[in-house]
C-alpha cells in the first residue's frame, strides 16, 4: 500500500494515488477535468453530480470517468 495519508484507487483501469480525504470533485480537478465534462461511475454506481463534492475518495475505490465520443478519433465533450 502507498504512503500514509494517500488513497490508492483505480481510475479508468489505471492505478492512481490521491491525498487521503479528498472528494471526487477534488480528484476530477487534479485530473484536469471539469465536473460537467464527465459522468462518474463510483464502484459500479453512477455518482450524481450533486454528490461529487460530498463523496470522499477511499483506497480501493474503482472509478470510471466517461464521456461521449464519436469514435476512435473523436473526443466529444458535451456533458453539462
Amino acid at each position, binding site marked *: 500500500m502507498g504512503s500514509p495519508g494517500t488513497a490508492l484507487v483505480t481510475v479508468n483501469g489505471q492505478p492512481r494515488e490521491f491525498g487521503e480525504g479528498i472528494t471526487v470533485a477534488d480528484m476530477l480537478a487534479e485530473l484536469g477535468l471539469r465536473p460537467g465534462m464527465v459522468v462518474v461511475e463510483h464502484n459500479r454506481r*453512477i455518482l450524481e453530480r450533486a454528490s461529487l463534492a460530498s463523496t470522499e475518495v477511499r483506497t480501493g475505490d474503482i472509478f470510471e470517468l466517461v464521456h461521449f465520443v*464519436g469514435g476512435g478519433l473523436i*473526443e466529444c465533450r458535451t456533458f453539462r
Partner: protein
Amino acid sequence: MQDIPLTIAGREFGSRLIVGTGKYRDNAEMVSAIEASGAEMVTVAVRRVDLDRSKDEGILHHLDHEKIFLLPNTAGCYTAEDAVRYARLGRAAGLNDWVKLEVIGDERTLLPDVFATVDAARTLVAEGFHVLAYTNEDVVTALRLEDAGCAAVMPLASPIGSGLGLVNPYFIREIKTRLTCPVIVDAGVGTASDACITMEQGVDGILMNTAIAQASNPVRMARAMRLAVEAGRLAWLAGRMPRREVAVPSSPTTGMLS
C-alpha cells in the same frame, strides 16, 4: 407534396436520415458531413475519458444542439448488463433519456444478440428510457422488441460496416407492415442506391455511419445519401408501377403510318 415528419417517442424529425459520428478522418470532416447529410439526429458512444489528454476540446460543441439531437448508443456491448450500464451512463450525461440499444452477439458478423437485446430493452423501458433497438431482419424479434416497449425498431440492411446494402427487402417490408412503431433500417448501407432502395421498402428512416465516413469524399457522400433517402421516400409515397414480365408500349399504337 408534403411528407409527414419522422416521429419517434413524440419527437419530430424533418430528416429521415440518422448518421453516426465514428470513423471520420477528423472532426471538421465529420461536422461538414453531418451538415451535408441534413440529419437532425446523430449517434454518439459512451467511452472512457483519456486521462492523458484531458485538456482536449470536443467537437460536438461545434454542432448546433438546437438542430442536432444526440442519440447515445451502446455500441460495442456484448451483454445485456453492459448495454444497460452504458445506457445509464449516457443518460447521466444529462442530454436526454434516449438510447440506441445495441447488444452484439458475434464478433465476426457483429450480428445482434437478440435475446440479450430484448432483455436489455425490457429493463431500460422499465427505467423510463426511450429505446431504439438495433436488431436483425427477423420479424419475430422485431415484434418482441415492439412488445417490450421500444420507441423504434432498427433492423439491419446487412452487417455493420459491410456496405452490402439491403440483402433482405422482403423481411424488411414484412417488419414494416407488422409493426406500429417506427422502423429505422440500421447498418449495411454502402452507397446511395442502397439507401434509396431501402427507403423504397416503406421504412421510416435509415441510420448509417460507415458508408459516409469511409467514402473517399464523406461530405459528397453525405449529400448523396440525403438525396437518396429523400428520393426513396418520395418513390415509396408515390407508389411504383407494377412489375410486368412483358413489355408494354408507352407510345400510342394507333395512328401509325400504313
